[in-house]
C-alpha cells in the first residue's frame, strides 16, 4: 500500500433533467487499494462510476488517471485507458460465446488482414479460464449455457485480464452466492497486490469494512467524506450515509410470539420441472415465512409457484376458502401479491408512470359503476400509497425508469399495499437497496404481520431471514432440506449447514 494517487476525481457533476445525480464530487483513489464507495440509493455512486467507464457522458469536472486526464466515450475506450467495470446486472451478452464476451471490443488482437482468428481467441480465453481457475467454463460455448454465477465469473475475467489500473465493481456481490463472493474477493485482493485499484460499491457495510482500505461516502450526489476503513465502525458509516443517527431496531426484536393456527395457504406436492420437487408447506395467518438457500436451490421458483406464475407447475396451491391458484389473475383476485427478484423486468413496468404502475392490479376496484377509470381518482390513489411509504419522486406522472432501485421497489410495494393483499410474497425484497429503505421495508413487513397479513419472504441474505421470519425453510436442489423456528439462538451457521 502506498500513498501514491492513482485516480483523481475533480469537481465532477452530472444532472438528469433537474436532478443533480452527482454534484461537485472530488476525491482521490490511492494505488494498490480497495476503495469502497458507499451511500444510499440515488446518492450517485453508480452515476459516478458510469461516467468513469464511459457509460454516461460527463457534464463537468474531470478524472485524472496517473496524472493524465481521461475522458472515455465508451467502455472500450475506458478499457484502453486502463479502467474496467463489473456491473450490477448481467454484463455478458447472450448469443455470443464465452471467448467472444471476454474479448468484446478488443477483437483486433486476433485480427490479421481483416480476418478474425477464432481459434486463437478461444485458445487465449481457455488459457485465461485456466489461469483464473474456472475450469468448468468452456471458451467456445455460448455464454447462455451458463448460469448467473458463472456468467459473473466470465465478467471478472473480462474486466481484469488486461491488468487494468482501476476496476469498478458495482454492487455485484448481492447477486452472488457465498461461493461466488469468495471468488470475487480473491480477485479483488489479486488486483490490489498487482498495484491496481478497485472501486468497490456495496450496500453490505460489514463487507465494505472487511474488504476495503478507504471508504468514500456520498449522499444525495454530494461528497461527504473519505476515511480509512480501520478508523470506523459500522454505526458511524450508517450515520454518515444517512446524515443522521440511525436508531431503533433494524429487524424485529420480538421472540416467542405464538403464531396463529389458521392456515391461509397450503402448498401440496408442487413440482416445477427443473426447479422444484414435491414441495409441501403451509402458511399461517400473521406469519412471516422465510425461504433461504443457494440461489439455484429453487427457492425463487417458490414465489412464482404460489403466485401462479410458474410454467408447467404440477401439484396444488390452495387458499383457506378452497380456491386453487393456477394463474396470476386468480392469485391477484384472491389477494396474493408478489414482488419478483427481477425487479426491472417482472415487477415494475419500466416505461410507464408511477401512477399506472401502482394502479395496475387495482384497476377493477378503481373503475366506477360503468367500469370507467378516472384520472383524478387514480392519481389520488397512487399519490396516497406512494406518499405513505415515501417514494422519492417528482410526481406520480414520472416514469418508473427514472427511479433508483430502492424507489422502484417502493413503487411495487405501494402497488400491493394499495391492493390490500393478504398474502404477500416478497422475493429478495431488499436486493441492492440501501439501509434506510431496507429499514423502511422491514418495518413495513412487521406492520403488515401485526395487521394479520401473511408474508413469504425469499432471500439470499441469511441475516434478514433470521431477523425477520417466524419460520425459515431452507431449500436445496429443489427440495426442502430443513426448517427452523424463530429464536434468538439461530445463527447463520445452522442455516448454511442445511443449504450445502
Amino acid at each position, binding site marked *: 500500500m502506498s500513498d501514491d494517487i492513482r485516480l483523481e476525481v475533480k469537481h465532477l457533476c452530472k444532472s438528469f433533467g433537474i436532478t443533480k445525480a452527482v454534484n461537485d464530487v472530488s476525491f482521490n483513489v490511492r494505488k494498490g487499494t480497495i476503495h469502497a464507495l458507499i451511500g444510499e440509493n440515488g446518492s450517485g455512486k453508480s452515476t459516478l462510476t458510469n461516467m468513469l467507464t464511459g457509460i454516461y457522458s460527463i*457534464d*463537468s469536472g474531470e478524472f485524472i488517471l496517473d496524472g493524465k486526464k481521461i475522458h472515455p466515450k465508451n467502455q472500450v475506450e475506458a478499457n484502453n485507458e486502463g479502467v474496467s467495470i463489473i456491473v450490477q446486472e448481467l454484463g455478458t451478452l447472450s448469443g455470443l460465446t464465452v471467448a467472444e464476451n471476454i474479448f468484446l471490443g478488443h477483437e483486433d488482437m486476433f485480427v490479421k488482414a481483416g480476418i478474425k482468428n477464432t481459434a486463437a481467441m478461444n485458445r487465449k480465453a481457455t488459457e485465461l479460464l485456466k489461469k483464473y481457475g474456472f475450469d468448468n467454463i468452456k471458451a467456445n460455448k455460448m455464454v447462455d449455457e451458463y448460469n448467473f454465477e458463472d456468467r459473473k465469473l466470465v465478467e471478472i475475467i473480462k474486466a481484469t485480464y488486461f491488468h487494468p489500473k482501476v476496476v469498478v465493481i458495482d454492487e455485484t456481490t448481492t447477486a452472488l452466492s457465498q461461493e461466488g463472493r469468495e471468488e470475487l474477493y480473491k480477485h479483488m485482493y489479486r488486483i490490489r497486490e498487482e498495484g491496481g485499484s478497485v472501486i468497490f460499491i456495496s450496500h453490505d457495510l460489514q463487507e465494505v469494512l472487511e474488504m476495503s482500505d478507504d471508504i468514500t461516502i456520498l449522499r444525495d450526489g454530494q461528497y461527504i467524506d473519505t476515511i480509512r476503513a480501520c478508523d470506523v465502525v459500522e454505526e458511524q458509516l450508517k450515520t454518515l450515509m444517512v446524515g443522521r443517527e440511525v436508531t431503533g431496531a433494524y429487524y424485529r426484536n420480538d421472540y416467542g410470539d405464538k403464531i396463529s393456527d389458521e392456515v391461509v395457504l397450503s402448498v401440496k406436492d408442487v413440482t416445477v420441472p427443473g426447479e422444484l420437487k414435491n414441495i409441501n408447506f403451509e402458511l399461517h395467518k400473521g406469519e412471516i415465512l422465510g425461504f433461504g438457500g443457494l440461489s439455484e436451490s429453487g427457492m425463487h421458483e417458490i414465489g412464482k409457484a404460489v403466485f401462479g*406464475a410458474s410454467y408447467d407447475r404440477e401439484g396444488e396451491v390452495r387458499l383457506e376458502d378452497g380456491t386453487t391458484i393456477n394463474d396470476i389473475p386468480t392469485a391477484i383476485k384472491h389477494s396474493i401479491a408478489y414482488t419478483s427478484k427481477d425487479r426491472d423486468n417482472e415487477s415494475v413496468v419500466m416505461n*410507464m408512470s408511477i401512477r399506472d404502475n401502482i394502479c*395496475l392490479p387495482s384497476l377493477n376496484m378503481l373503475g366506477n359503476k360503468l367500469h370507467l377509470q378516472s384520472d383524478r381518482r387514480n392519481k389520488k390513489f397512487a399519490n396516497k400509497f406512494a406518499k405513505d411509504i415515501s417514494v422519492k419522486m417528482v410526481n406520480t406522472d414520472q*416514469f418508473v*425508469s427514472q427511479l433508483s432501485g430502492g424507489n422502484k421497489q417502493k413503487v411495487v410495494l405501494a402497488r400491493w399495499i394499495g391492493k390490500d393483499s393478504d398474502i404477500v410474497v416478497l422475493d429478495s425484497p431488499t436486493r441492492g437497496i440501501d439501509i434506510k429503505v431496507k429499514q423502511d421495508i422491514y418495518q413495513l413487513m412487521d406492520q403488515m404481520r401485526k395487521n394479520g397479513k401473511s408474508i413469504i419472504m425469499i432471500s439470499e441474505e441469511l441475516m434478514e431471514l433470521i431477523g425477520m421470519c417466524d419460520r425459515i425453510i431452507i431449500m436445496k436442489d429443489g427440495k426442502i432440506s430443513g426448517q427452523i423456528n424463530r429464536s434468538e439462538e439461530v445463527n447463520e451457521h445452522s442455516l448454511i449447514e442445511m443449504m450445502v
Partner: protein
Amino acid sequence: MEKVKAIAPLGGMKKENMMSMIRAILPVVGLVLVFLLFNTLTAGRMTMNMSLVLSQVYVIMISAMGVFFIMTMGGLDFSQGSILGISSIVVCYLSQYGVVIAILGGIAAGAIIGMINAYFYVYRKIKSFIVTICTMFLFRGFIKYLTTNAPVSGSATLINYDSTALKLTCTIIILVCGFVAFRYTRFGTGLRAIGAGEKAAMFAGIRTDRMKFWVYVLSGAITGFAAFINVIKVGSVTSSGGNQLETQILIALVLGGMPISGGAKVRFENIIVGSLLYIVLNSGLTMMGFSTQMLQLIEGVVFLVFVAIFADRESLSVIK
C-alpha cells in the same frame, strides 16, 4: 470557467424539454402548415374540395384505430390492406342480401383474418410483423384469385349510402368508442402496460396473451367495418383493392406523432392528426400535379424524417 459549469447542465435540460415539446406539437403545427401551404399553392382549391379530400380519410382513420391499439402493445400489422380487400369482397357479395348482412359479413371476415394473425403471433410465438407480412401476401393472393375475371362489384343500392353525413357519423362514433375504451378503461391501461413492459404487465395481473389475441381480432373487425365505407365509395373491388393500406396507416400514425415502439407515450390524438395530415399531404401533392412516383418519393422522405423524430430510442428493442 465556473460559469460554464453552472450553465452546462441547464443547457442539457432545455434541449431535452425542447425535444419533447417538438414531439408534442409538431404533428398539429405540421397539419396546419401543410394545409395552409397547399391552399396557397393550389390557390384555394383544397378548401373548395374539402369533402373530396375528406372522403379519403374515413377508411384510413377507422382502420388506423385498430392498428393504433396493436402498435400501443408494441406489435405491428402489415396485413391491413389485404384485410380491407377481402372484407370489401365479402361486403360486395353479401350486399345483395341486405346491407346489414353485408356489414356484419365484412366485420366477420376481418375478424377471422385478425384471428389467424393472432393465433400465429400469440400462440405460435412468431413476431407480429413476420406473421402479418405472410398473411398480407396470402390474402392478397386470394383477392387476386377472386378478381381474376372481373372486379367484384356490390349491389347497386350500396351507392345510395355514399353520403358524407353517414361516413362522418360512423367514423366519429367509432373514434369516440375507441377513445373512451383507450383512455378510460382497463383495456387502454392494459394495452399501454403491455407495450411498456409485457412481462411486468403479466406479473401485475394483466392477461397479456388473451389481450393480444383479442386486440388483433378487434383490429381485423374494425378494418372489416371500414371495408363497408370503402365499398360504398368505390362500388367494386379490383385485384388491388385495399393495396398499401397498411403502409398508409403506418405513415399516418407516425406522422401523428406515435412512437413506433408503442408503450405509455402514445396518445389517441395521434390517429386523428396523423390521418388528416397524411391525407392533406397526399391530396395536396396530387392537386399540385405531382406524379404518383414523385408522390411516393416525397412521402417516403417525410415518413423517414418523422420516424427519426418520434422514435423512442430507449424502448425500440421492445417491438414484437
